[in-house]
């Protein structure tokens, strides 16, 4: 399997060098600033950079890997002052501030000219104001990753309704464990919980209306969401002190079996595996149904963009073609890489159990719609105020009224 990938990649390097004469003599320096700082993505990013560097003898690829959380506050700085050529970021609304500030380069021509074959399906997530601003390189399902062995031990099965979820959770708590690991220090993990609670309670369309600012935070719909969420909180379903951990800090709870499940993106799998959990101990299920709505899912897309101040635009564009090509996509999203879903329609999805399940879920059971993620669907300022409120709710559910009034006030200011 691996050999085949390596072979195709090598073949691709040859063919691309032949079929793209315009880029064959790329020269100068290509500066890439990446936020892929976790061990597995970091290795992938490094191999992308060195692979591209090897393809173009006259081109020097300079890669700087920046801490993923820190990057969120650094990117603007990076793009305004002495910008690199290529940067990592996220799709959808989260691009908004940089698109509006003119910091991302408009690459609509690449899509229009057919430079990016196989990307039509994902084009929408990269479109803002009718233009395209970057390319995706991976996407992944969200869902509940759980300890199959503990479920078996307790005689539990994958729940499909919220009532079953709560009943399972009660059994888990009775066994002296917590139901869910979470680390909310950097807030966004709480956003994931809200996404699912709200999409399930009120449906995908209502959730997106809230994201667009068309629905009040103090409405009955939103309150119903928090009421459902509160059931879990009051049961003691979540690990204690989660506000002090980041998401990786909370992994040992699952690994040691102190918590049985983790609502997370598929990128969690390599971490759990490398911590020693086998596939027999791990499994995945779709977040269960609450209201009678078609299922909506979070499937965030991670992206590459060309800075509008890029100095080596030609090489940057070639790099974008390189990372989105079917061969590279198959390889970097494979089980030895990110373990996620490729964004190119012509790439093959690996036969990894979690990737297959995720792909299946997203193509067959996400009729409600596919959302990017709380902090990508809501405008950045609303997302930041919102996630702070969500974290507070998880720690002090009694503050809910105060939190919702605050968020409503923020909504009225931000969407005016």
């Amino acid at each position, binding site marked *: 399997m691996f050999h085949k990938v390596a072979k195709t990649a090598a073949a691709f390097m040859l063919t691309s060098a032949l079929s793209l004469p315009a880029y064959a003599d790329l020269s100068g320096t290509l500066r890439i600033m990446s936020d892929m700082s976790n061990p597995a993505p970091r290795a992938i990013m490094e191999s992308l950079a060195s692979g591209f560097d090897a393809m173009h003898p006259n081109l020097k690829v300079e890669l700087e890997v920046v801490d993923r959380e820190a990057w*969120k*506050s650094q*990117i*603007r*700085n990076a793009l*305004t002052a002495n910008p690199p050529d290529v940067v990592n970021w996220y799709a959808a609304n989260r691009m908004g*501030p940089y698109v509006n*500030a*003119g910091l991302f380069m408009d690459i609509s021509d690449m899509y229009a000219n057919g430079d990016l074959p196989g990307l039509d399906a994902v084009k929408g997530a990269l479109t803002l104001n009718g233009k395209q601003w970057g390319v995706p390189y991976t996407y992944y399902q969200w869902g509940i990753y759980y300890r199959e062995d503990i479920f078996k031990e307790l005689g539990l099965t994958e729940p499909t309704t919220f009532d079953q979820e709560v009943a399972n959770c009660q059994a888990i708590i009775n066994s002296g464990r917590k139901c869910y690991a979470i680390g909310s*220090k*950097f*807030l966004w993990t709480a956003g994931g919980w809200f996404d699912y609670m709200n999409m399930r309670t009120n449906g995908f369309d209502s959730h997106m209306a809230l994201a667009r600012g068309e629905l009040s935070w103090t409405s009955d719909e939103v309150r119903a969401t928090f009421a459902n969420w509160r059931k879990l909180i009051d049961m003691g379903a979540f690990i*204690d*002190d989660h*506000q*002090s951990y980041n998401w990786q800090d909370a992994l040992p709870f699952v690994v040691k079996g102190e918590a049985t499940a983790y609502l997370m993106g598929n990128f969690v799998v390599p971490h759990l595996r490398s911590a020693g959990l086998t596939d027999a101990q791990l499994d995945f299920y779709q977040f269960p149904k609450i209201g009678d709505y078609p299922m909506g899912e979070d499937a965030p897309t991670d992206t590459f963009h060309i800075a509008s101040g890029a100095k080596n635009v030609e090489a940057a564009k070639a790099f974008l073609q390189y990372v989105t090509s079917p061969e590279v996509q198959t390889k970097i999203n494979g089980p030895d890489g990110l373990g996620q879903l490729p964004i190119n329609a012509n790439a093959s999805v690996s036969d990894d159990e979690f990737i297959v399940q995720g792909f299946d879920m997203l193509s067959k059971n996400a009729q409600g719609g596919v959302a990017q993620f709380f902090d990508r669907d809501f*405008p*950045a*300022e609303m*997302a*930041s105020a919102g996630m*702070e*409120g969500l*974290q*507070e709710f998880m*720690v002090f559910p009694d503050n809910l009224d105060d939190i919702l009034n*605050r968020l409503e006030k923020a909504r009225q200011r931000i969407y005016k």
Partner: protein
Amino acid sequence: MSLAVDERSWLQRHRMTVTPLLFLLPGVLFFLVYVINPIIQSFNISLYEWDGLGTATFVGFGNYEELIDDRAFEISLWNNLKWLALYLLAIPAGLLIALFLNQNIIGIRIYKSLFFFPFVISQVVVGLVFSWFYLPREGLLNAALTLFGFDTINVLGDPKMATYGIIAAGLWPQTAYCMILYLTGLNAVNPEQIEAGRLDGAKGVRMLWYVILPQLRPATFIAFVVTIIGALRSFDLISIMTNGGPFGSTRVLSFYMFEKALSEYGFRMGYGSAIAVVLFLIMLVFIIYFLWSMYRDERAARH
């Protein structure tokens, strides 16, 4: 040397003015460009809405008006006051340790250096060290609490405790600093006056209060200056230990300003500058007091 004054060149005649000017020039120039001018500019920027790139829009005191209604700003301001008040504990604590260590036993020099140690390491490391110390499960603090039969606490996860937890971390190096100031001060205390005090029957606390402390005044002054500055500059520890959280409860002005001006969702340079101006004005009260004290000393030194 020439005899007639006129024969000397202009430079020669004015050397007592020209020399200091030339010597001052590079330093003053650097300082004007990087320190003085930016202060003035910050005042100016705070009157604009500006994202750091495009054109700035004049909004008058709009940013300041927004501050009044900003809950995060209010929290930051209160936290700054907590920092100011509690950070000053470093002064008596430093004095206490200095008095404790002001003895001659074998190895006392090493002990003094090791007590001073926390000041030498960076605040980033202090912040990390303390955030691990406070860890809810792995941390030493909770290990100790459990050992003595208390409930564990999550210092940095509790909005009521987090700021105090960070201040405690800050007090560690700051106390060490004050300690070393007092140790040096104690070296210079006049032994005759102590003897005189003893003859007058002064002992312990009375001796400290009436004889020693007055002589330690310069040390106290410096300790006060550096502690106030340290309290208002507090940024590293907050950034490392809680990043302003949980839910924004540990922000202070210096951190909030940074967040607003260089955050992910927009460079609000004007708004950030307005926060910085408020911080500056608080500091200005102290700066004026410091300068006034120094001016008095200068005058006294001349007579």
